[in-house]
Protein backbone atom coordinates (compact mmCIF):
# COMPACT_ATOMS: atom_id res chain seq x y z
CA UNK A 1 0.00 0.00 0.00
CA UNK A 2 2.77 2.43 0.92
CA UNK A 3 5.16 3.45 -1.76
CA UNK A 4 5.95 6.39 -3.90
CA UNK A 5 2.97 8.38 -5.19
CA UNK A 6 3.44 11.11 -7.80
CA UNK A 7 0.69 13.18 -9.43
CA UNK A 8 1.27 14.88 -12.80
CA UNK A 9 -1.31 17.62 -12.94
CA UNK A 10 -2.24 21.15 -14.04
CA UNK A 11 -3.47 23.55 -11.35
CA UNK A 12 -6.66 24.63 -13.17
CA UNK A 13 -7.75 21.17 -14.34
CA UNK A 14 -11.07 20.06 -12.85
CA UNK A 15 -9.98 16.51 -13.71
CA UNK A 16 -6.73 16.84 -11.77
CA UNK A 17 -8.74 18.21 -8.84
CA UNK A 18 -10.66 14.91 -8.66
CA UNK A 19 -7.42 13.07 -7.94
CA UNK A 20 -6.20 15.69 -5.45
CA UNK A 21 -9.48 15.39 -3.53
CA UNK A 22 -9.35 11.58 -3.54
CA UNK A 23 -5.76 11.49 -2.27
CA UNK A 24 -6.61 14.06 0.41
CA UNK A 25 -9.69 12.10 1.51
CA UNK A 26 -7.46 9.06 2.00
CA UNK A 27 -4.66 11.05 3.66
CA UNK A 28 -2.12 9.78 1.11
CA UNK A 29 1.17 11.67 0.90
CA UNK A 30 2.27 12.38 -2.65
CA UNK A 31 4.55 14.50 -4.78
CA UNK A 32 2.67 17.03 -6.93
CA UNK A 33 4.28 17.89 -10.26
CA UNK A 34 2.87 20.85 -12.19
CA UNK A 35 2.83 20.35 -15.96
CA UNK A 36 3.12 23.14 -18.51
CA UNK A 37 0.56 21.95 -21.05
CA UNK A 38 2.26 23.89 -23.85
CA UNK A 39 5.54 22.16 -23.03
CA UNK A 40 4.77 18.70 -21.67
CA UNK A 41 7.47 16.96 -19.69
CA UNK A 42 9.23 13.81 -20.97
CA UNK A 43 7.85 12.08 -17.88
CA UNK A 44 4.24 12.87 -18.86
CA UNK A 45 4.80 11.77 -22.45
CA UNK A 46 6.39 8.56 -21.21
CA UNK A 47 3.70 7.83 -18.60
CA UNK A 48 0.71 8.66 -20.83
CA UNK A 49 1.92 8.10 -24.38
CA UNK A 50 -1.56 7.46 -25.75
CA UNK A 51 -3.39 10.59 -24.60
CA UNK A 52 -0.46 12.75 -23.38
CA UNK A 53 -2.84 14.30 -20.85
CA UNK A 54 -2.99 15.04 -17.16
CA UNK A 55 -3.83 13.89 -14.57
CA UNK A 56 -1.53 10.88 -14.34
CA UNK A 57 -0.95 9.09 -11.04
CA UNK A 58 2.36 7.27 -10.80
CA UNK A 59 2.33 4.66 -8.01
CA UNK A 60 5.56 2.75 -7.41
CA UNK A 61 6.66 3.78 -10.89
CA UNK A 62 3.50 2.53 -12.66
CA UNK A 63 1.19 5.05 -14.35
CA UNK A 64 -2.59 5.20 -14.03
CA UNK A 65 -4.41 7.53 -16.43
CA UNK A 66 -7.94 9.00 -16.72
CA UNK A 67 -9.18 10.85 -13.64
CA UNK A 68 -12.18 8.67 -12.71
CA UNK A 69 -10.13 5.52 -13.24
CA UNK A 70 -7.44 6.98 -10.98
CA UNK A 71 -10.03 7.79 -8.27
CA UNK A 72 -11.33 4.20 -8.33
CA UNK A 73 -7.75 2.91 -8.18
CA UNK A 74 -7.06 5.10 -5.13
CA UNK A 75 -10.24 3.80 -3.49
CA UNK A 76 -9.23 0.18 -4.12
CA UNK A 77 -5.59 0.48 -3.03
CA UNK A 78 -6.25 2.53 0.12
CA UNK A 79 -9.37 0.54 0.89
CA UNK A 80 -9.00 0.65 4.66
CA UNK A 81 -10.18 4.23 5.12
CA UNK A 82 -12.62 6.91 3.88
CA UNK A 83 -14.42 4.84 1.20
CA UNK A 84 -15.12 6.90 -1.93
CA UNK A 85 -17.66 4.46 -3.36
CA UNK A 86 -20.52 2.86 -1.40
CA UNK A 87 -20.30 -0.84 -0.57
CA UNK A 88 -23.67 -1.78 -2.13
CA UNK A 89 -23.29 -2.75 -5.83
CA UNK A 90 -26.46 -0.90 -6.91
CA UNK A 91 -25.41 2.31 -5.19
CA UNK A 92 -21.93 1.92 -6.65
CA UNK A 93 -23.50 1.64 -10.10
CA UNK A 94 -25.55 4.78 -9.49
CA UNK A 95 -22.38 6.66 -8.45
CA UNK A 96 -20.62 5.46 -11.62
CA UNK A 97 -23.61 6.41 -13.79
CA UNK A 98 -23.62 9.99 -12.51
CA UNK A 99 -19.84 10.34 -12.64
CA UNK A 100 -20.06 9.17 -16.27
CA UNK A 101 -22.84 11.71 -16.99
CA UNK A 102 -20.68 14.49 -15.54
CA UNK A 103 -17.74 13.29 -17.62
CA UNK A 104 -19.79 13.18 -20.83
CA UNK A 105 -21.62 16.48 -20.43
CA UNK A 106 -20.01 19.09 -18.21
CA UNK A 107 -16.64 19.90 -19.77
CA UNK A 108 -17.83 20.24 -23.36
CA UNK A 109 -20.90 22.31 -22.57
CA UNK A 110 -18.88 24.52 -20.21
CA UNK A 111 -16.21 24.98 -22.84
CA UNK A 112 -18.79 26.24 -25.35
CA UNK A 113 -19.77 28.94 -22.85
CA UNK A 114 -16.30 30.51 -22.69
CA UNK A 115 -14.98 29.81 -26.19
CA UNK A 116 -17.92 31.03 -28.30
CA UNK A 117 -20.10 34.08 -28.83
CA UNK A 118 -23.58 34.91 -30.04
CA UNK A 119 -25.98 32.09 -30.93
CA UNK A 120 -23.39 29.37 -30.41
CA UNK A 121 -22.74 30.65 -26.90
CA UNK A 122 -26.46 30.86 -26.11
CA UNK A 123 -26.86 27.24 -27.19
CA UNK A 124 -23.85 26.27 -25.06
CA UNK A 125 -25.28 28.12 -22.05
CA UNK A 126 -28.61 26.36 -22.37
CA UNK A 127 -26.94 22.96 -22.63
CA UNK A 128 -24.68 23.71 -19.65
CA UNK A 129 -27.58 24.84 -17.46
CA UNK A 130 -29.79 21.93 -18.56
CA UNK A 131 -27.04 19.53 -17.50
CA UNK A 132 -26.68 21.29 -14.13
CA UNK A 133 -30.45 21.12 -13.62
CA UNK A 134 -30.43 17.38 -14.31
CA UNK A 135 -27.70 17.00 -11.69
CA UNK A 136 -29.55 19.20 -9.24
CA UNK A 137 -32.69 17.08 -9.67
CA UNK A 138 -30.64 13.95 -8.97
CA UNK A 139 -29.14 15.54 -5.85
CA UNK A 140 -32.59 16.47 -4.56
CA UNK A 141 -32.53 17.17 -0.85
CA UNK A 142 -29.58 14.87 -0.13
CA UNK A 143 -26.45 16.47 1.32
CA UNK A 144 -24.29 14.67 -1.27
CA UNK A 145 -25.01 12.74 -4.47
CA UNK A 146 -24.47 9.44 -2.70
CA UNK A 147 -26.57 10.42 0.31
CA UNK A 148 -25.04 11.25 3.66
CA UNK A 149 -21.48 10.61 2.61
CA UNK A 150 -19.27 12.61 0.23
CA UNK A 151 -18.26 10.25 -2.56
CA UNK A 152 -17.49 9.41 -6.18
CA UNK A 153 -20.11 11.51 -7.98
CA UNK A 154 -19.38 14.52 -5.74
CA UNK A 155 -15.67 14.15 -6.51
CA UNK A 156 -16.45 13.97 -10.24
CA UNK A 157 -18.35 17.29 -10.17
CA UNK A 158 -16.80 19.44 -7.45
CA UNK A 159 -13.81 20.69 -9.50
CA UNK A 160 -16.20 22.49 -11.85
CA UNK A 161 -17.29 24.71 -8.95
CA UNK A 162 -14.16 26.86 -9.10
CA UNK A 163 -14.83 27.36 -12.82
CA UNK A 164 -18.41 28.63 -12.30
CA UNK A 165 -17.30 32.25 -11.75
CA UNK A 166 -15.54 32.21 -15.15
CA UNK A 167 -18.51 30.55 -16.90
CA UNK A 168 -20.96 32.96 -15.27
CA UNK A 169 -18.96 36.07 -16.18
CA UNK A 170 -18.31 35.16 -19.80
CA UNK A 171 -21.74 33.60 -20.27
CA UNK A 172 -23.60 36.30 -18.37
CA UNK A 173 -25.67 34.11 -16.08
CA UNK A 174 -25.79 33.02 -12.46
CA UNK A 175 -25.59 29.35 -11.50
CA UNK A 176 -27.02 30.15 -8.07
CA UNK A 177 -30.09 31.77 -9.63
CA UNK A 178 -30.71 28.69 -11.78
CA UNK A 179 -29.52 25.91 -9.45
CA UNK A 180 -29.46 27.10 -5.83
CA UNK A 181 -29.34 23.57 -4.38
CA UNK A 182 -26.27 22.78 -6.41
CA UNK A 183 -24.48 25.87 -5.08
CA UNK A 184 -25.47 24.86 -1.55
CA UNK A 185 -24.01 21.42 -2.27
CA UNK A 186 -20.78 22.96 -3.58
CA UNK A 187 -20.37 25.16 -0.49
CA UNK A 188 -21.00 22.10 1.69
CA UNK A 189 -18.21 20.27 -0.17
CA UNK A 190 -15.89 23.27 0.20
CA UNK A 191 -16.25 22.96 3.99
CA UNK A 192 -14.25 19.77 3.70
CA UNK A 193 -10.52 20.37 3.86
CA UNK A 194 -9.87 17.73 1.20
CA UNK A 195 -11.88 19.88 -1.23
CA UNK A 196 -10.94 23.42 -0.18
CA UNK A 197 -7.23 22.57 -0.29
CA UNK A 198 -7.56 20.93 -3.73
CA UNK A 199 -9.46 23.62 -5.62
CA UNK A 200 -7.74 26.82 -6.76
CA UNK A 201 -9.25 30.25 -6.12
CA UNK A 202 -12.06 31.02 -8.59
CA UNK A 203 -10.55 34.44 -9.39
CA UNK A 204 -7.32 32.78 -10.47
CA UNK A 205 -9.33 30.45 -12.71
CA UNK A 206 -11.22 33.42 -14.14
CA UNK A 207 -7.96 35.20 -15.01
CA UNK A 208 -6.64 32.04 -16.60
CA UNK A 209 -9.79 31.65 -18.74
CA UNK A 210 -9.69 35.35 -19.67
CA UNK A 211 -6.12 34.90 -20.92
CA UNK A 212 -7.10 31.78 -22.89
CA UNK A 213 -9.94 33.68 -24.54
CA UNK A 214 -7.42 36.29 -25.69
CA UNK A 215 -5.10 33.54 -26.95
CA UNK A 216 -7.97 31.93 -28.89
CA UNK A 217 -9.12 35.28 -30.18
CA UNK A 218 -12.59 35.00 -28.66
CA UNK A 219 -12.47 38.55 -27.27
Amino acid at each position, binding site marked *: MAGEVVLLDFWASMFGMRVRVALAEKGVKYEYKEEDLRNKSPLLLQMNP*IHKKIPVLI*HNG*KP*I*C*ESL*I*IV*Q*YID*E*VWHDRAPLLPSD*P*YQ*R*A*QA*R*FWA*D*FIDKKMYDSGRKVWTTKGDEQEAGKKEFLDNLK*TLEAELGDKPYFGGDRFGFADIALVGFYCWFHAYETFGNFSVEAECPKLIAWAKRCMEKESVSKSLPDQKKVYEFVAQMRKNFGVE
Partner: protein
Amino acid sequence: MAGDSVKLLGFWASPFTARVHWALKLKVVKYEYFEEDFRNKSTLLLQSNPVYEKVPVLVHNGKPLAESLVILEYIDETWKQNPILPQDPYERALARFWAKFVEDKCVPEIISVFTKRGEEKEKAARDARENLKILESALGEKRFFGGETMGFVDIVAGWIGYWGRISEEVAGVNLIDAATIPLLNAWFEHVLEVPIIRECLPPREKLLEHSKNVYEIATAGST
Protein backbone atom coordinates in the same frame (compact mmCIF):
# COMPACT_ATOMS: atom_id res chain seq x y z
CA MET B 1 -29.60 -16.20 -6.30
CA ALA B 2 -33.01 -17.79 -6.01
CA GLY B 3 -35.94 -15.48 -6.61
CA ASP B 4 -33.86 -12.96 -8.54
CA SER B 5 -35.61 -11.04 -11.30
CA VAL B 6 -33.23 -9.93 -14.04
CA LYS B 7 -34.58 -8.11 -17.10
CA LEU B 8 -32.64 -6.76 -20.04
CA LEU B 9 -34.24 -4.11 -22.23
CA GLY B 10 -32.43 -3.98 -25.54
CA PHE B 11 -32.34 -3.74 -29.29
CA TRP B 12 -31.35 -6.81 -31.30
CA ALA B 13 -28.97 -4.89 -33.60
CA SER B 14 -27.25 -2.88 -30.88
CA PRO B 15 -23.68 -3.86 -29.99
CA PHE B 16 -24.16 -2.10 -26.63
CA THR B 17 -27.03 -4.45 -25.84
CA ALA B 18 -24.82 -7.34 -27.03
CA ARG B 19 -22.23 -6.45 -24.37
CA VAL B 20 -24.80 -7.05 -21.62
CA HIS B 21 -26.05 -10.32 -23.19
CA TRP B 22 -22.43 -11.53 -23.29
CA ALA B 23 -21.73 -10.63 -19.65
CA LEU B 24 -24.93 -12.25 -18.37
CA LYS B 25 -24.32 -15.40 -20.42
CA LEU B 26 -20.66 -15.66 -19.39
CA LYS B 27 -21.83 -15.44 -15.78
CA VAL B 28 -24.61 -17.97 -16.44
CA VAL B 29 -27.27 -15.59 -15.10
CA LYS B 30 -30.90 -16.28 -16.00
CA TYR B 31 -32.64 -13.23 -17.44
CA GLU B 32 -35.65 -12.11 -19.42
CA TYR B 33 -35.04 -10.14 -22.61
CA PHE B 34 -37.37 -7.40 -23.83
CA GLU B 35 -37.01 -6.06 -27.37
CA GLU B 36 -37.51 -2.27 -27.59
CA ASP B 37 -39.00 -0.48 -30.58
CA PHE B 38 -37.29 2.91 -30.93
CA ARG B 39 -40.29 4.48 -32.58
CA ASN B 40 -42.45 3.38 -29.66
CA LYS B 41 -40.35 3.14 -26.50
CA SER B 42 -41.88 1.19 -23.63
CA THR B 43 -42.99 2.87 -20.42
CA LEU B 44 -40.53 0.64 -18.56
CA LEU B 45 -37.65 1.96 -20.67
CA LEU B 46 -38.63 5.61 -20.27
CA GLN B 47 -39.06 5.18 -16.52
CA SER B 48 -35.88 3.16 -16.13
CA ASN B 49 -33.63 5.46 -18.12
CA PRO B 50 -35.15 8.94 -18.04
CA VAL B 51 -31.75 10.61 -18.57
CA TYR B 52 -30.90 9.02 -21.94
CA GLU B 53 -34.03 6.99 -22.89
CA LYS B 54 -31.71 4.41 -24.48
CA VAL B 55 -30.94 0.72 -24.35
CA PRO B 56 -29.44 -1.34 -22.87
CA VAL B 57 -31.13 -1.12 -19.49
CA LEU B 58 -30.76 -3.80 -16.85
CA VAL B 59 -33.54 -4.11 -14.28
CA HIS B 60 -32.51 -6.25 -11.31
CA ASN B 61 -35.23 -6.95 -8.77
CA GLY B 62 -37.07 -3.87 -10.00
CA LYS B 63 -34.05 -1.57 -9.82
CA PRO B 64 -32.94 -0.09 -13.17
CA LEU B 65 -29.44 0.58 -14.45
CA ALA B 66 -28.30 2.26 -17.67
CA GLU B 67 -25.02 2.66 -19.62
CA SER B 68 -23.43 -0.60 -20.75
CA LEU B 69 -20.06 -0.13 -19.01
CA VAL B 70 -21.79 0.71 -15.71
CA ILE B 71 -24.02 -2.34 -16.16
CA LEU B 72 -21.00 -4.60 -16.83
CA GLU B 73 -19.30 -3.56 -13.58
CA TYR B 74 -22.57 -4.08 -11.68
CA ILE B 75 -22.97 -7.57 -13.14
CA ASP B 76 -19.39 -8.39 -12.13
CA GLU B 77 -19.92 -7.19 -8.55
CA THR B 78 -23.31 -8.85 -8.11
CA TRP B 79 -22.58 -12.31 -9.57
CA LYS B 80 -19.15 -13.42 -8.44
CA GLN B 81 -18.62 -16.48 -10.68
CA ASN B 82 -16.46 -16.17 -13.84
CA PRO B 83 -15.00 -12.75 -12.97
CA ILE B 84 -14.97 -10.12 -15.71
CA LEU B 85 -12.54 -7.64 -14.13
CA PRO B 86 -9.21 -8.74 -12.62
CA GLN B 87 -8.67 -8.68 -8.85
CA ASP B 88 -5.51 -6.59 -8.76
CA PRO B 89 -6.24 -2.81 -8.58
CA TYR B 90 -3.57 -1.92 -11.17
CA GLU B 91 -4.84 -4.55 -13.63
CA ARG B 92 -8.38 -3.30 -13.04
CA ALA B 93 -7.27 0.25 -13.81
CA LEU B 94 -5.67 -0.97 -17.06
CA ALA B 95 -8.83 -2.86 -18.06
CA ARG B 96 -10.95 0.25 -17.39
CA PHE B 97 -8.45 2.42 -19.30
CA TRP B 98 -8.70 0.25 -22.43
CA ALA B 99 -12.48 -0.03 -22.16
CA LYS B 100 -12.65 3.79 -22.05
CA PHE B 101 -10.24 3.97 -24.99
CA VAL B 102 -12.57 1.77 -27.03
CA GLU B 103 -15.55 3.90 -25.98
CA ASP B 104 -13.92 7.27 -26.69
CA LYS B 105 -11.63 6.48 -29.63
CA CYS B 106 -13.05 3.49 -31.53
CA VAL B 107 -16.84 3.62 -31.13
CA PRO B 108 -17.40 7.21 -32.36
CA GLU B 109 -15.16 6.61 -35.40
CA ILE B 110 -16.96 3.39 -36.34
CA ILE B 111 -20.32 5.16 -35.99
CA SER B 112 -19.04 8.10 -38.07
CA VAL B 113 -18.21 5.74 -40.91
CA PHE B 114 -21.98 5.26 -41.10
CA THR B 115 -23.12 8.81 -40.66
CA LYS B 116 -20.50 10.89 -42.48
CA ARG B 117 -19.73 11.21 -46.15
CA GLY B 118 -16.74 11.81 -48.41
CA GLU B 119 -13.51 12.98 -46.78
CA GLU B 120 -15.08 12.98 -43.29
CA LYS B 121 -15.97 9.30 -43.72
CA GLU B 122 -12.48 8.45 -44.93
CA LYS B 123 -10.94 10.26 -41.97
CA ALA B 124 -13.22 8.39 -39.55
CA ALA B 125 -12.13 5.08 -41.10
CA ARG B 126 -8.45 6.10 -40.88
CA ASP B 127 -8.85 7.10 -37.22
CA ALA B 128 -10.65 3.82 -36.48
CA ARG B 129 -7.84 1.80 -38.09
CA GLU B 130 -5.20 3.79 -36.19
CA ASN B 131 -6.97 3.37 -32.86
CA LEU B 132 -7.56 -0.35 -33.39
CA LYS B 133 -3.81 -0.64 -33.96
CA ILE B 134 -3.23 1.08 -30.61
CA LEU B 135 -5.75 -1.26 -28.98
CA GLU B 136 -3.82 -4.21 -30.38
CA SER B 137 -0.75 -3.12 -28.38
CA ALA B 138 -2.72 -3.84 -25.19
CA LEU B 139 -3.56 -7.37 -26.36
CA GLY B 140 -0.09 -8.53 -27.33
CA GLU B 141 0.19 -12.28 -27.67
CA LYS B 142 -2.69 -13.08 -25.29
CA ARG B 143 -5.63 -15.10 -26.50
CA PHE B 144 -8.02 -12.60 -24.88
CA PHE B 145 -7.50 -9.22 -23.21
CA GLY B 146 -8.61 -11.05 -20.06
CA GLY B 147 -5.93 -13.74 -20.51
CA GLU B 148 -7.14 -17.30 -21.05
CA THR B 149 -10.81 -16.35 -20.79
CA MET B 150 -12.85 -13.36 -21.85
CA GLY B 151 -12.74 -10.31 -19.60
CA PHE B 152 -13.91 -6.72 -19.46
CA VAL B 153 -12.16 -5.38 -22.56
CA ASP B 154 -13.12 -8.48 -24.60
CA ILE B 155 -16.79 -7.88 -23.78
CA VAL B 156 -16.51 -4.13 -24.40
CA ALA B 157 -14.70 -4.41 -27.77
CA GLY B 158 -15.42 -7.89 -29.13
CA TRP B 159 -18.51 -6.79 -31.10
CA ILE B 160 -16.25 -4.83 -33.46
CA GLY B 161 -15.19 -8.07 -35.13
CA TYR B 162 -18.79 -8.77 -36.20
CA TRP B 163 -20.50 -5.40 -36.51
CA GLY B 164 -17.32 -3.78 -37.83
CA ARG B 165 -17.02 -6.17 -40.77
CA ILE B 166 -20.64 -5.54 -41.72
CA SER B 167 -19.99 -1.79 -41.54
CA GLU B 168 -17.05 -2.24 -43.90
CA GLU B 169 -19.28 -3.91 -46.45
CA VAL B 170 -22.12 -1.40 -46.14
CA ALA B 171 -20.09 1.81 -46.01
CA GLY B 172 -17.37 0.67 -48.42
CA VAL B 173 -14.46 1.32 -46.06
CA ASN B 174 -11.66 -0.70 -44.56
CA LEU B 175 -11.70 -0.93 -40.77
CA ILE B 176 -10.15 -4.27 -39.89
CA ASP B 177 -7.05 -4.99 -41.92
CA ALA B 178 -5.61 -8.44 -41.20
CA ALA B 179 -2.20 -7.33 -42.44
CA THR B 180 -2.02 -4.23 -40.21
CA ILE B 181 -3.61 -5.72 -37.08
CA PRO B 182 -2.94 -9.47 -37.25
CA LEU B 183 -3.16 -10.05 -33.49
CA LEU B 184 -6.42 -8.13 -33.11
CA ASN B 185 -7.79 -9.88 -36.18
CA ALA B 186 -7.02 -13.28 -34.60
CA TRP B 187 -8.57 -12.09 -31.32
CA PHE B 188 -11.84 -11.17 -33.10
CA GLU B 189 -11.98 -14.80 -34.30
CA HIS B 190 -11.31 -16.13 -30.78
CA VAL B 191 -14.18 -14.08 -29.41
CA LEU B 192 -16.67 -15.05 -32.09
CA GLU B 193 -15.68 -18.72 -31.67
CA VAL B 194 -16.73 -18.78 -28.00
CA PRO B 195 -19.94 -20.87 -28.15
CA ILE B 196 -22.14 -18.64 -25.95
CA ILE B 197 -21.05 -15.59 -27.95
CA ARG B 198 -21.57 -17.24 -31.32
CA GLU B 199 -25.04 -18.43 -30.29
CA CYS B 200 -26.31 -14.99 -29.35
CA LEU B 201 -25.03 -12.97 -32.33
CA PRO B 202 -27.79 -11.47 -34.47
CA PRO B 203 -28.07 -13.33 -37.82
CA ARG B 204 -25.61 -11.87 -40.34
CA GLU B 205 -28.06 -11.35 -43.21
CA LYS B 206 -30.58 -9.66 -40.94
CA LEU B 207 -27.90 -7.36 -39.48
CA LEU B 208 -26.52 -6.59 -42.93
CA GLU B 209 -29.99 -5.66 -44.21
CA HIS B 210 -30.67 -3.49 -41.14
CA SER B 211 -27.26 -1.78 -41.45
CA LYS B 212 -27.87 -1.00 -45.13
CA ASN B 213 -31.17 0.67 -44.20
CA VAL B 214 -29.53 2.70 -41.44
CA TYR B 215 -26.73 3.74 -43.80
CA GLU B 216 -29.17 4.80 -46.51
CA ILE B 217 -31.17 6.94 -44.09
CA ALA B 218 -28.05 8.43 -42.49
CA THR B 219 -26.52 9.41 -45.81
CA ALA B 220 -29.72 10.34 -47.63
CA GLY B 221 -29.43 13.41 -49.76
CA SER B 222 -25.65 13.19 -50.02
CA THR B 223 -23.85 13.61 -53.32
